[in-house]
């Protein structure tokens, strides 16, 4: 019996992203990082302070997980007084799923 396998569908998912973000000083870094970590599919969040002034902080945000949704990340950041200036690094992995 020769069962033919259909070709597997290849998907890509973001597993790591490094963002250059401008955020307001409140909420402070620990709360900001915890909020990002509460997103689905996010496993690790690292926030490093780059620059600070009276009202704002420039930070480097590193998010790791499986199939990270950048739109959700952007929306959450905007709701917490932060804007993404640039995406500095992205790591995408291939995920293949075999069709039945």
């Amino acid at each position, binding site marked *: 019996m020769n069962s033919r396998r259909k070709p597997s569908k290849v998907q890509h998912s973001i597993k790591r992203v490094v963002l250059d973000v401008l955020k307001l000083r409140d*909420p402070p870094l620990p709360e900001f990082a915890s909020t990002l970590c509460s997103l689905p599919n996010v496993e690790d969040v690292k926030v490093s302070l780059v620059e600070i002034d009276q009202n704002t902080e420039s930070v480097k945000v590193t998010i790791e997980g499986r199939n990270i949704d950048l739109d959700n990340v952007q929306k959450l950041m905007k709701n917490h*007084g932060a804007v993404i200036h640039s995406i500095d690094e992205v790591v995408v992995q291939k995920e293949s799923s075999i069709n039945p």
Partner: protein
Amino acid sequence: MESLNRIISRIRLYIKITHIGELARRYFVQNGMDGSMTALGIILGSWAAKVEEPFVIVMAGLGACLAMGVSGFFGAYITEKAERRRIIKDLEESILSDLNDSLQQSASEFAQTFAALICGLSPALTAIISLIPFIISMFGDLTIWSSYVISTIIAFSELFALGLFLGHVARERMLTYGLQMVVAGMIIAFILLAIGGYGSI
């Protein structure tokens, strides 16, 4: 229970973001002192006028409580709202983005209401507490003259307690602050007692 914990955490975050905690402490003491001093003025003024009907003192006191409460609430709400709007606009300029429906906007709205509640409730509560002996006297369970004495002691105790709180906030000698507040109350007492004594001549 979990949702209550979540609400408390959210409130703590709002207080942290808006720094309303420091302002709230100031409002609480300032307005609480207003309430106690107003009640003390009514009590001692009534004594000087030889008012023997507790109902008169209670109604005058409740009128003052209501006025202070409403004035405190609305005054603080409108003032804080204007200040918070300005702060939000400054922040929007800093990040070149709007803050509609953001955490900062929600925290700002919370801060307005919180400040208003403190400014409205603290003078009203301190004044009402001082009037409790007269309310009891209305039901005949206390003589009017005992009510005068107990209410005066309560009003001075409130001032002392507010001073202790300030001393705790300042991390200095609490007793010194407490006594300073009592001295402020004594000034009213001396003047009104002198007027009362002069009036009886």
